[in-house]
């Protein structure tokens, strides 16, 4: 078995891991729909979006490894870190749920990523700015596609509406984590690496309100609960997704095909 690697805890590296891991874990989650989506077109859409997200994750994790300077490449970072060293938002590790849950989460995350990539285009790190310049276009398309589905399911039959409302209640518990700033954020802002995530809150709520209004859904109140995935303290679902994702590289270190 391949042992785990330890990761530098400096704020710049942590900031990049939060972004790269969020892309990677959501990509892994929505790829679970391959072969299972309700219609063929959505099967293809999910696989395509998962590919974009994993491509973004590869680029960001590669950059995180370079900044860390310990010689860790994208594969080592993806496959050889333990759960506590993963820094993704808890929101993206939740099980895929039903289709309403999936499209609503995709709309929430794509909206957030779009706003983040927009600002990262001005990063003091030229490589990160370059990655953002590409990813922003993909995030826009993902947001558009997911938002269409939220409207279609929210403003439709009783069944689809009930499911979308239930998904909204469940997912909204994890929203505060998207906008809680801490020392990692402050350092990124100070270095010009990227924005404080708290600065994304107002534009994100405005865009989500546009989507929810069109879907005739009401935005829930903010929860008191605080999820902590970006600080390495994850939900009970995280270990399982990592076990599935990492098994092969742990059992057959360096295996390629």
């Amino acid at each position: 078995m391949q042992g785990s690697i330890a990761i530098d805890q400096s704020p710049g590296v942590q900031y990049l891991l939060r972004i790269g891991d969020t892309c990677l874990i959501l990509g892994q989650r929505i790829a679970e729909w391959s072969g299972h989506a309700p219609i063929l077109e959505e099967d293809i859409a999910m696989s395509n979006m998962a590919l974009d997200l994993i491509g973004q994750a590869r680029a960001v994790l590669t950059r995180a490894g370079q900044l860390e300077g310990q010689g860790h490449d994208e594969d080592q970072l993806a496959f050889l870190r333990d759960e506590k060293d993963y820094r993704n938002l808890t929101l993206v590790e939740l099980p895929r749920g039903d289709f309403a849950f999936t499209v609503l989460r995709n709309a929430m995350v794509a909206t957030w990523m779009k706003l983040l990539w927009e600002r990262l285009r001005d990063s003091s790190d030229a490589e990160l700015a370059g990655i953002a310049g590409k990813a922003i276009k993909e995030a826009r398309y993902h947001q558009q596609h997911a938002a269409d589905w939220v409207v279609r399911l929210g403003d439709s039959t009783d069944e689809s509406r009930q499911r979308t409302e239930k998904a909204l209640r469940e997912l909204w518990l994890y929203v505060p984590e998207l906008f809680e700033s801490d020392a990692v954020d402050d350092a990124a802002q100070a270095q010009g690496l990227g924005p404080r995530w708290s600065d994304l809150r107002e534009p994100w709520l405005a865009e989500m309100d546009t989507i929810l209004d069109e879907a005739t859904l009401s935005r829930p109140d903010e929860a008191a609960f605080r999820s902590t995935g970006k600080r390495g303290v994850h939900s009970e679902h995280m270990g399982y997704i990592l076990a599935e994702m990492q098994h092969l590289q742990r059992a057959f270190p360096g295996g390629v095909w």
Partner: protein
Amino acid sequence: MSALAAVATTRCERAWDVLGTVLDPEVPALSVRDLGIVRDVIDHGEALEIVLTPTYSGCPATEVIEHDVLAAIAKADLGPAHVTLRRAPAWTTDWISADGRRKLSEYGIAPPGPAAPDGAVPIRFFGRKADVIACPRCGSLHTERLSAFGSTACKAMYRCISCREPFEHFKPL
């Protein structure tokens, strides 16, 4: 005559010619030059540097293209070469050449229109007026979108109401 012409042509120019014969593995109607992903060819004396810009972050063809480019340069006997990836500025479908657009259309893929200006793009919802895409077979504008995503990340699926044929559209990006 051909030997003289070859002498008069620089190594970079010959490399550009070779790159015009390397086909995109997923859209084999286009060369990597037509696609606009070859951004530069630099002669460093010993080695030739070929600068590529990836199309989509997760495009699985990127690595195949790198391999194919190097194989073609080696086959043309242009000496040692390596590929570097340049991310910025990001690739846009506006870089697909006029020749490339014609080839796409002949291949049955509706070419992309101009990419959206790089600014805030408002969210639009179902019921919006969809972009009008001309059928690459009969030219009819009476077409409809079947799927926002297609067989590769860069395409969407459409059908023509006039000639009844399905077709792919290269999405503007």
